[in-house]
């Protein structure tokens, strides 16, 4: 009996502080936000009017928001795809891809691993401001300067609506790759060397080594990576808001759900409507989380 009591006390004591903090600072504002989504609140009055589901009806015909949703969807596919392919490629080269010393990484692989990780430690706002300068459209731009010196015409990285989205994607991949190189490297390190050796004896080249051994054994890690990157793709905000022209432009070509929420709230002062967009985004994210948990069946992973 005493033990049960002690156990209960322990559980309560350990949960009290985190749960209280969480309820007060996270849950209560969000409940308020869900309520605001059903009002016409413009952000400055003390008493918003209840308007039911009007905001949700309205958002169905909001072309810009749906454009943003398609951008998020594109990122959801492309960001993990590019990041994982590039990161797998480098992780493989760094760990098993050496030509010389048996199944080992290329010389200097430690240095590469450290350097590749650099972008990850920079604040997203810093990265956004930095690339705004890198992408400058004239010869003072880091990329266009050399291009123009070679006599080529400059590329409008951020000001051509057909290119801007890819610039955003490029920066996101640039920042993410290093982390996944490290993640996959660790995965590779846990695969017994013998497997590669055996395959190599069978005459497997690097390509088949990669597809026959590396990829299948890393599959679980790849799935984890996909989920992380998927959440990143749904959540993207600062890169778009700070880096792109007209915060999601030009001509809405880079806008995402988060920037539209932000724009509606803090520029149009339509907090009710913005909250409704936020609720929709919440369900998209939950949907993605449930879907990926189901598909990846993480409980099967054994260590």
């Amino acid at each position: 009996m005493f033990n049960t009591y002690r156990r209960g006390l322990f559980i309560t004591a350990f949960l009290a502080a985190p749960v209280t903090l969480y309820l007060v600072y996270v849950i209560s504002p969000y409940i308020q936000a869900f309520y605001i989504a059903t009002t016409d609140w413009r952000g400055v009055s003390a008493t918003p009017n209840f308007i039911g589901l009007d905001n949700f009806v309205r958002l169905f015909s909001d072309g810009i928001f749906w454009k943003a949703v398609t951008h998020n969807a594109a990122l959801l596919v492309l960001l993990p795809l590019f990041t994982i392919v590039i990161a797998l490629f480098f992780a493989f080269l760094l760990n098993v891809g050496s030509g010389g010393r048996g199944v080992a990484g290329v010389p200097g692989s430690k240095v590469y691993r450290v350097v590749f990780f650099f972008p990850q430690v920079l604040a997203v706002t810093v990265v956004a401001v930095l690339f705004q300068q890198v992408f400058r459209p004239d010869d003072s731009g880091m990329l266009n300067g050399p291009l123009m010196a070679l006599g080529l015409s400059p590329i409008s990285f951020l000001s051509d609506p057909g290119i801007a989205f890819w610039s955003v994607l490029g920066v996101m991949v640039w920042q993410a790759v290093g982390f996944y190189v490290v993640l996959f490297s660790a995965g590779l390190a846990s695969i017994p060397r013998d497997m590669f050796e055996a395959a190599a004896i069978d005459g497997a080249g690097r390509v088949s080594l990669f597809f026959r051994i590396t990829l299948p054994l890393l599959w679980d890690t790849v799935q984890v990576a996909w989920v992380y990157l998927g959440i990143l793709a749904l959540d993207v905000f600062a890169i778009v808001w700070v880096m792109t022209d007209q915060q999601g432009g030009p001509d809405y070509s880079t806008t995402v759900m988060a920037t539209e929420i932000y724009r509606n709230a803090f520029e149009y002062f339509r907090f009710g409507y913005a909250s409704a967009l936020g609720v929709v985004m919440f369900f998209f994210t939950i949907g993605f989380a449930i879907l990926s948990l189901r598909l990846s069946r993480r409980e099967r992973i054994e260590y």
Partner: protein
Amino acid sequence: MTTMTSWTIANSRKLARQERRRRMGPLALLTHLALLLWTVLTVVPILWTFLASVKSEDEIFGAAWSLPATLRWDNFARAWDQVHIGQYFLNSVIVVAFSVTGTMLLGAMAAYVLARYPFRGNRAVYLLFVSGLAFPVYLALTPLFFVVQNMGNVPLIGPFIGLNTHAGLVLVYIAYSMPFTVFFLAAFFRTLPTAVGEAAMVDGASHTRVFFQIMLPMARPGLVSITIFNVLGQWNQYQLPLVLLQERDKWVLTQGIADISTAAGYDADWAALFAALTLAILPMLIVYTVFQRQIQSGLTMGALK
């Protein structure tokens, strides 16, 4: 494979090595090329920023890769004196130090209980935490402002945790880091063996003691990696401090950088902007390079186990 003798392994290694050396000469070159290319892609924008930070305004608007005529260290002086980058940096360090410590302590406590102690409502509490992963932060900004403002009216401790206080921001950071921390640490605690803890309990150790003296040390790799995630996440946070810290001398680094970047639209001190960017980037790179081994091993162990 297990039946293979060491002789055959050694021999086959040798054979394979020879074979590969013969076949992969040009490929090895391509490998290095690819790696070098990405290295350049990674390092060059950062180096270019450093370069621009010692240029004059004119040179920044001139050819991108020209070297500065004289090194303009006064850019840094301006970034430091007028824009108070040093103060913001210090504020960031203070806030993140406390909030990450708090996050890890409270997060580990909650995750441990939720992972290892079945009780009524366990699943509900767990889901409550995890669902937070799907909340977009900006949705909560305005209501959160009121929460913190109201906290400022709590008797006694109010003045320390209200608006414009670092302690208030620390509490908010802790709360907003809970979903991620609890989600991953709970998963991690579930993978740890139960035997050691049970044995200690039989020997009369309390639940609390088992947690602090046995489970926490065992969970170290997981804790390290989640700590790093939280340090990065909280260090980079911009939206929350922007709303909650309005007084300039309380600002954190991201606010300072964004402010200079916005300011560049009005008074055009681009040189100071690059200097400030450099001041924001350099310490992070140094700290990372010094601790890179711990960080990398911590990260990967936690993420995989």
